[in-house]
């Protein structure tokens, strides 16, 4: 596959639901109550249940692996969670190639809430086949 600096990845828009948070809690084995118990989430100062950081990481990883297809491999992936995201609101994953050196490309990746605020920011390194 041909990759150039400045190239944008096709957006991946997710529509997380509370049901999905429960599904993810079970699949990952993370049963922290802030992800499915509204009363508990509010008791620790949150507006309600929030998405798992690692679920958002999973969404952003999907953004990259969908784009790569069989054309390369993910070598490293780093995300910082800068804000909370709630179910019932769209979560848009985006990415851009920042640098290409030989067959290695560096990407900037991020997740946005519906207002366009980057609640997750990160980078990925891929090796192009």
């Amino acid at each position: 596959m041909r990759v150039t600096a400045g190239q944008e990845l096709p957006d991946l828009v997710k529509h997380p639901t509370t049901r999905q948070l429960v599904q993810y809690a079970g699949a990952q084995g993370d049963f922290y109550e802030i992800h499915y118990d509204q009363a508990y989430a509010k008791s620790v100062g949150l507006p309600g249940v929030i998405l798992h950081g690692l679920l958002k990481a999973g969404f952003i990883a999907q953004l990259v692996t969908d784009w790569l297809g069989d054309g390369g491999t993910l070598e490293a992936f780093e995300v910082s969670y800068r804000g909370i995201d709630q179910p019932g609101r769209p979560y848009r994953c985006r990415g851009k190639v920042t640098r290409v050196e030989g067959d290695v490309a560096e990407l900037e990746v991020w997740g946005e809430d519906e207002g366009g605020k980057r609640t997750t920011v990160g980078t990925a390194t891929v090796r192009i086949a």
Partner: protein
Amino acid sequence: MSIAIIEVIDRLKTRIGVEGPPVIATVEAGHVRRFAEAIGDPNPRWTKEAPPTFLVALASGSIHLGDAEDFGTGWLNGGNRFEYFIPVMIGDQITARGHVADVYDKAGSSGDLLFIIFETVYKNQRDEVVARLRGTMIRR
């Protein structure tokens, strides 16, 4: 910051470098399928291989530090860094070894925050390092 909180931080700092018990687990097809379904990722590749973040479902990468819960009211995930060396395939037997890499506190906009950095190395049945994970957990 109160003396009690300083004591909590000092106690946690003594855990830097301490390894948690190793976690040994097989990458099961059904578990990988449920994990990919929970993310909503229908890529057929995940019928043979584990998706990039799946390893956290085998071993979360954090060690339970009850002491940390004396600080603040809740946990937040600050970030994760994954490095991949060898694909993780269904049927692999993975051994995860994690340790506390760092503990520090920082003043945040709405009070003090406690940061705990965990590092986990995942190896397969051939003793090859398949991935490394660094995670930042925050008490606020």
